[in-house]
């Protein structure tokens, strides 16, 4: 490396100190270590579903089909619940944003429509 100016050394430092990839599978190992939280999901109880045996299906196939339906419903419900959570959080943020906006517009109104009197001292340059 030919150094003609301090800036080149700093550029070289930046080049050689670029972030390195984390080890393969890092994110997966981390996610596996996260605490599992129980979230309420809307799932129809298995007992409420009609038995597929009445259609003459073998027990194993009937069970597999019911599991597949159960999982499908659960995935759809999980997605719906997630979207609901995001929507509720977003609506709360929206109301908060509009409150702040309203307060600041009122500040502007106050300052414009209640100018200082002639005798008021300057307290800020």
């Amino acid at each position, binding site marked *: *490396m*030919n*150094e*003609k*100016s*301090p800036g080149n*050394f*700093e550029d070289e*430092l*930046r*080049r*050689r*100190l*670029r*972030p*390195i*990839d*984390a*080890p393969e599978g*890092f*994110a997966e*190992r*981390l*996610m596996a*270590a*996260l*605490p599992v*939280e129980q*979230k309420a999901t809307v799932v129809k109880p298995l007992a409420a579903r009609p038995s597929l045996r009445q259609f003459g299906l073998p027990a194993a196939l009937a069970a597999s089909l019911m599991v597949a339906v159960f999982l499908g419903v659960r995935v759809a419900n999980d997605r719906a619940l*997630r979207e609901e*959570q*995001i929507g509720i*959080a*977003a609506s709360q*943020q929206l109301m908060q944003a509009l409150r702040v906006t309203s307060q600041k517009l009122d500040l502007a109104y106050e300052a414009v429509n209640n100018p200082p009197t002639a005798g008021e001292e300057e307290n800020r340059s």
Partner: protein
Amino acid sequence: MSLSAAHPMPDSLLLQARAGDRNAFAALVRAHQGSVFSIGLRMLSRRDAAEDLAQDVFLQLYRKLDSIESLEHLGFWLRRVAANLAIDWLRRLPYSATQPLDESAEVAAQVSEDDPLMSRELMRLLGELAPHPRAVMLLRYQEDRDVAEIAAMLDMPVNTVKSHIKRSLTALRGRMIGAKLIDCEELP
């Protein structure tokens, strides 16, 4: 996955993660794991310790997601926690636990194909800096943070940050010249 100007991370990802979406959280992890791991590796000089540190940082993030206000805040928070945790560990771990396991060659090759010897020597010299100036140099030249931000992250005065940078640059340059890895120059 890494952040880039061409493919900015949507702000909604943070909102989703805060709402309990584990896939969204995993995406945030993947976007920042390189930075956090690299801070750990270059502070602690060992891959195993760096991975432990990175995992600790992201576990803390998972617990504190509600306090993260924006993606910008997320980047600031991760770097701050990673750097301060690494400084803490350096203080508390026995000396032997922070000595490189001869992985520096592998690390150097990962970053620079043209002169792995220089990269290896630079990593070694960086490892000889005291914890605080080492953290300052990584936040400045690896993470490209400005002086004010580094001061806030490490809770130190701006002038102290500037002083660490100046002294560390002088020390590193001098040692590299001494090792004939760079040409002689007029030092400021």
